[in-house]
C-alpha cells in the first residue's frame, strides 16, 4: 500500500520532470531532479540507520546472552577437556586390548605345537608302531600337555575377558562425544544468527581440494573434497599414475 503510493509519487515527479525538460525550463528541471535524488538518499539513509540499529541490538543481545558467556567461559574449555579424555580413554582401551593379544598369541602357539607333537605320537600308537618306552614317554607328554592346556586356557580366558572389558570405552566416549555434539549444535545456532545479521559477506568456503590442508580420517556426511573410497580406490589411483 505504502510502496504503491511512493511509486505513484515517483511517477508523478518523473512526469513533472519530463514536462519541465520538454518546456525547456532547465532550472526548474534541475531543482526537480535534485528533490527526487534527495528523497532517494533519505530513504537509503533511513534503511542504513535501521540496519545499524538492528545489528547493534542483535550484537548486544548476542554478547549479553548468559548462554554465550557460559559457553565461552566454561562449556568450550570443558568440551576440549572432554575430547582430550576421549583420546586418553580410547588409547588405554587399545593398549589393554593389545596387551591381552600379545600375551595370548604365544599361548595359542604353544597349545597348537603341543597338540601337533602329541598328535603324531598318538597316530603311531593307534597304528601299533610304538614301543613300550615310547608309550611311557607319550603318557608323560600327555599329562604335561593337559597341565599346560589347563593353565593356558585359564590365562586365555582371563585375557579375552580383559579385551571384552576394554571395549567399555565405546560407551564412555560415545556419551562424552554426544555432549560435545550438543554444544557444537548450540554454538552453531548462535553463529548462524550472527551470520544472518551480518549478511552474506562470509560466503567463502574452505577449499577442500587444497592438498596442503590435512583432513584426517574420512567421516561420512562431511564434505572433505575429492577423497578416495578405501584401499581399492587408492590402488586404482596409484596404478593410473604408473605405479
Amino acid at each position, binding site marked *: 500500500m505504502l510502496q504503491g503510493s511512493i511509486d505513484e509519487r515517483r511517477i508523478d515527479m518523473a512526469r513533472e520532470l519530463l514536462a519541465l525538460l520538454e518546456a525547456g525550463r532547465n532550472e526548474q528541471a534541475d531543482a526537480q531532479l535534485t528533490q527526487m535524488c534527495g528523497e532517494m538518499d533519505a530513504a537509503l539513509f533511513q534503511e542504513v540507520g535501521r540496519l545499524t540499529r538492528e545489528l547493534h541490538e542483535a550484537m548486544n543481545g548476542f554478547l549479553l546472552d548468559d548462554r554465550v558467556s557460559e559457553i565461552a567461559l566454561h562449556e568450550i574449555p570443558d568440551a576440549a577437556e572432554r575430547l582430550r579424555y576421549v583420546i586418553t580413554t*580410547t*588409547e588405554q582401551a*587399545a*593398549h589393554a586390548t*593389545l596387551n591381552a*593379544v*600379545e600375551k595370548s598369541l604365544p599361548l595359542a602357539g604353544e597349545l597348537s605345537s603341543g597338540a601337533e607333537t602329541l598328535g603324531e605320537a598318538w597316530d603311531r600308537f593307534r597304528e601299533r608302531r610304538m614301543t613300550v618306552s615310547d608309550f611311557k614317554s607319550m603318557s608323560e607328554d600327555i599329562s604335561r600337555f593337559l597341565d599346560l592346556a589347563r593353565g593356558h586356557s585359564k590365562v586365555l580366558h582371563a585375557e579375552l575377558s580383559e579385551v571384552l572389558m576394554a571395549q567399555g570405552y565405546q560407551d564412555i566416549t560415545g556419551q562424552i562425544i554426544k555432549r560435545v555434539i550438543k554444544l557444537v549444535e548450540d554454538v552453531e545456532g548462535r553463529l548462524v544468527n550472527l551470520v544472518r545479521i551480518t549478511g552474506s559477506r562470509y560466503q567463502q568456503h574452505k577449499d*577442500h*581440494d*587444497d*592438498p596442503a590442508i*590435512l*583432513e*584426517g*580420517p*574420512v567421516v561420512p556426511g562431511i564434505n*572433505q*573434497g*575429492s*577423497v*578416495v573410497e*578405501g*584401499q581399492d580406490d*587408492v590402488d586404482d*589411483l*596409484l596404478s593410473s*599414475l604408473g*605405479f
Partner: protein
Amino acid sequence: MKILIVDDFSTMRRIIKNLLRDLGFTNTHEADDGNTALPMLQSGNFDFLISDWNMPGMTGIDLLRAVRADANLAAMPVLLVTAESKREQIIEAVQAGVNGYVVKPFTAATLEEKINKIFSRVAA
C-alpha cells in the same frame, strides 16, 4: 630387515609392530614424528620406513622429502600408512617418491600385500 615405524599414536605403532612380527619382521623400531625419525634413519642403518602422514612436528610427507633429499637414504623404500584420503594428497605423495600408500583403517592383509609388493619391486 630393520624397520622404522613412525606414528604419533602409540597404539597405531603397536598395531603395525604386531602385524610386522606376524609377518616375520622382528627388528622394528619406533618414532613419534618426523623430527625424531630423521636422525634415527640417518644413524641407524634402517632398511624400510613406514610412516603416518599427519603428525605434530615434522609430517610424514616432509619426512619422505627429507629421506629422498638425503643421499644416504634416498633409495630407502617408504610406505605411508595414513588416514589422509584426498586424491591430491596421494598424487603429492607419489610425486614426493613414496613406494606405497595404505589408508587407515586398514587390514593385516592389505599391509602384508603392500609390503610384499614394495620388496618384490626393490628386489627386481
